[in-house]
């Protein structure tokens, strides 16, 4: 179980977020659950790049580097965080307008489209 702790942590975070999206009734809590899912996946992606006894992958003028962690996932996760920010902003804007039209944040009452 020692070598798999990062998988376990991210999987548990992902499941907590998924539970929030599926079972909570308030729109804002669903949005927070979506945020937790995105955090879990980004964290997993960064942890994948860890090499043992590595240090931060930044070159400095007067140090020689022996081994560093993988820098590629860090660049990709930066992009992914910004994508998550854009989606969150859009969903929050939609949620504000839904409150204005329907008068409630409860998704069991926002069900005009059915069938």
């Amino acid at each position, binding site marked *: 179980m020692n070598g798999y702790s990062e998988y376990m942590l991210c999987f548990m975070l992902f499941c907590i977020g998924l539970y929030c999206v599926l079972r909570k009734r308030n729109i804002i809590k669903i949005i927070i659950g979506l945020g937790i899912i995105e955090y879990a996946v980004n964290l997993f992606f960064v942890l994948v790049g860890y090499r043992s006894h590595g240090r*931060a992958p*930044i*070159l*400095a*003028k007067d140090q020689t580097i022996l081994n560093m962690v993988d820098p590629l996932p860090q660049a990709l996760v*930066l992009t992914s*965080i*910004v994508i998550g920010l854009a989606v969150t*902003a859009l969903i*929050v*804007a939609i949620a*504000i307008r839904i409150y*204005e039209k329907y008068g409630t944040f409860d998704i069991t009452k926002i069900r005009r489209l059915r069938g």
Partner: protein
Amino acid sequence: MKNKKEVGMTVIVKTITRLTVGLILLYGIYIVLHGHLSPGGGFAGGVIIALSFIHLMLAFGREVALKKLSQASASILESLGAIMFLGIAILGFIGGYFFLNFFLHKGKPFALFSAGIIPLCNIAICLKVGAGLFAIFAALVLFKGSDEK
């Protein structure tokens, strides 16, 4: 004489904001310009610059912040940042490939003006992200529902 309604937060917050907001802006610009030497770059620096304007809006109320940077000019800056990034990419076609760096040489490592087109791309991304984030915040603040009119 009627009392003007107090907007924004208390006096303590307003004083500290007056002192620190310029420093936050400067720090954001520092992170953008040194994006090729230390962690940060366009995204992080853009977010910090947007945060300085949002800090102004939170502490002083929306009129003061919108006088400094109105919503329309935030939209224009955002599009300009995106067009600048696309323009840098298209300029690479002169050298033969998309995104090729042909007009700024690599320079000495660890100097400020080095690493080709990366600082220009960082500035373009910073404009887009900073203006975009501030425009989102301003749009959500200025949203007048049908009951407020």
